[in-house]
């Protein structure tokens, strides 16, 4: 019976990817060509090829490479945008973090981030995992393990063994619930990112969503903001230091 279940699971997971195998190889070959162009110093061609690969498929590595092209072409706001996108998919990646840090040094605005965001690297690495589905897979495994342990604890007769298996079952259930929660939040984060990067060279952040209201502060290209809501072409944004205001949606680009 377990075997039937396993093959069912495999078929549902793998079949959808297999169906588009042709297009995937196409995207892979575009990426290989882009990489050759980049190492030959032609970042403009590399960027165009990477962009064309990044239509239906994407990955943290691809987004990171696009960010690198923008950086080398001195388009810092876009470099930051793509590094942030890559980091969203792979929050623990050292290379993305390091390049993002370098790109941020070249922006004008210095926003003091809350300390938690900076020391969270280890937590982010652990939480972010290698790809978006990692926690979903982990939740499946831990859930199956928890139930298996439970079944085992019922089957054994030795009292001590039964107790230990019950304790292990309890731990596994807690871990499984944690994994489900993480999988849910990670998927939501990637599916509905709330961050955005300022693209306009300079933009006033105003107190109300209309032209001519009081300008609260001034932002420059490359600064990361959190979009709280959008309303008729205006976005309510919050900075990492907690300041909130409105700016035109066209001045920012969503991560």
């Amino acid at each position, binding site marked *: *019976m*377990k075997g039937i*279940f396993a093959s*069912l*699971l495999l078929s*549902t*997971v793998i079949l*959808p*990817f297999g169906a*588009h195998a042709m297009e*995937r190889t196409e*995207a*892979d070959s575009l*990426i290989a060509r882009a*990489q050759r162009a*980049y*190492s030959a110093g032609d970042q403009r061609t590399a960027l165009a090829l990477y962009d064309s*690969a990044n239509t*239906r*498929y*994407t*990955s*943290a*590595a*691809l987004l*990171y*490479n696009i960010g*690198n092209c923008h*950086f*080398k072409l001195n388009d810092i706001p876009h470099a930051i945008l793509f590094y942030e996108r890559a980091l969203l998919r792979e929050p623990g990646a050292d*290379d993305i973090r*390091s*390049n993002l840090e*370098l*790109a941020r040094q070249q922006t004008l605005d210095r926003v003091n981030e809350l300390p938690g965001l900076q020391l969270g690297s280890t937590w982010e690495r652990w939480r972010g995992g290698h*790809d*978006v*589905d990692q*926690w*979903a*897979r982990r*939740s*499946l495994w831990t*859930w*199956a393990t928890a*139930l*298996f342990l*439970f*079944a085992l604890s*019922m*089957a054994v007769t030795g009292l001590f063994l039964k107790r230990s298996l019950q304790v292990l079952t309890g731990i596994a259930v807690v871990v499984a619930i944690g994994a*489900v929660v993480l*999988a*849910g939040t*990670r*998927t939501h984060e*990637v*599916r509905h990112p709330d961050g955005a990067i300022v693209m306009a060279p300079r933009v006033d952040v105003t107190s109300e969503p209309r032209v001519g209201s009081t300008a609260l502060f001034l932002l420059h290209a490359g600064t990361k903001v959190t979009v709280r809501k959008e309303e008729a072409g205006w976005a309510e944004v919050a900075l990492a230091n907690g300041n909130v205001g409105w700016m035109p949606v066209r001045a920012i680009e969503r991560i």
Partner: protein
Amino acid sequence: MRHGIHTLLTACVLFISTGALAQEITFDAKVDRNDFAVGENIRLTLSLTNGQGDITTPDLGGLVVVQGPFESSSFNYINGRMSSSVSRSFTLTATRPGDFTIGPAKARVGGGTISTDPITVHVEKGSAAPSDRSLQNVQSSNPDLFVSVTLSRQHVHVGEQIIATYTLYSRYPNLEVSNYDLPELNGFWAEEIDIGQTSWEDQLRAVNGLNYRVAVLKKQLLFPQHPGELTIGAVKLTCTVNRSFFNRGSRVEARSQPVTVDVTALPSDKPADFCGAVGQLVMDISVDRKEVKANEAIELTIRVNGRSNLKLIDAPKLTFPPDVESYDPKVEDHINVTGGGMSGSRAFKYLIIPRHEGDITLGPYSISYYDTEKDRYQVLNSEPIAIHVGPGSGNASARSSRPSKETVEMLDHDIRYLRTGDPGLREKDRFLYGSWAYISGMAAPVVALLLFMGWRRQREARAQDVTGQRRRRADRVARKRLKEAEQALTSNDREQFYAAMTKALQGYLADRFGLGVAEITPEVIATRLADRADDGELARSISDLIATCEMARYAPIEGRPRKELYAEAVRSIRQIENA
């Protein structure tokens, strides 16, 4: 009007003159031609005939006297008539094209004054190659005494050398310079060129047809320090001219005109090792020795040779191996500043002390300069120099056994390279979490667990019902054993028969009542079968039957025929079963 007065005067003179001198007095001015070019000469002649008096030189209206005045006079007696003439002539030239008017010349004759008509001349642009334009300008401001500032080049790069020559032009035979003001040189770094004692040149020099005595006052090397239009201001010279034993002379001021230099910035692709030199250079690197002991000094010399702004070259910033101590370089110059510019060599001497034994490599080092002939930056590279450092004397080698730790120095920052290898592409907006695969994956273990628990419960229920099972199976088991007994009966195997009989009866009862075989005693049988209506008949007969069979099994006594025993056993079991 003036002509009228002139005629009247002439008439008066005529009237006054006696017979012998009844000659006409004339005074006129002539030029040999009215059209000429810059640099050419014309001759102006003022002649007074039949009169004697002072002739005043007319206003020349911008024309310059090259030579003159020359005076000549003549007396003639022809047929008893005396005529005299006095003439004064000048050689004139023009320093610029245009129309010039020579004003009226005046002569005082007797009590009156007569004057000539003004003359207009037209000056063309010279057909001959004109002199330096700036020279022409400054000449026209004062043709007798001026100073020119000539530059070897007027379009230069920042740092490129220019030779500025200050030359005095004079047409005064006698001149003393009493004071001079040199211009301020804003934006230049200047170096004097030694030209020795200032003296007049042997040859006269002609400028626009005028001959001058010339003296070079000063030569300077100028190095522009920043791009743009840089101006060298005017030189002011105060001179005393025509001083003689009898004459205190007069003061004349000579000036030059400001000169501008167009300085362009060096191209922006300045190499990091640019040393500030502009010109032509070669580099030579040497060390005084290649084998040393630890803690002994080596002198590394970098010498640049050539024609350039050598005095402005900065010491190259050399990097040495980390365990080598180095000191700021000593600068040694062999620089000549001559009329040809600045040339020679500048040497930077670095004292370096290797602290530990081992082989070290110095360089390769490079410096770059701006080559004015090729109009681009040139890099001078050196070969690396290998130095063998032998063990130092006692104390030092003990120290060298423990090398000091150096922190890794970051030279520059750059982003990390691309991620290569499998990009791990996945479809956008397709997530495992929340998909059907995920839901079924979560549900599947639950279903499996429920199925497992159901199966287990069923098995347990059956396991609990073991007595019923035995009871249900009791008849079947008994029949099987009775069949064995029947076989033993036919084969006349006594022992086998009684064993099978005992087993069949006892096993049946044990199965039937859910007891162990050992528990089957006559009392138990009686109790179990007490509810029967036969008043314990069946119980007694079974107990007897068992007892008989047991007895017959272990002792050679056979109370009853075997066939009868068998039949009774079968009947008894059927009776219990049917109840």
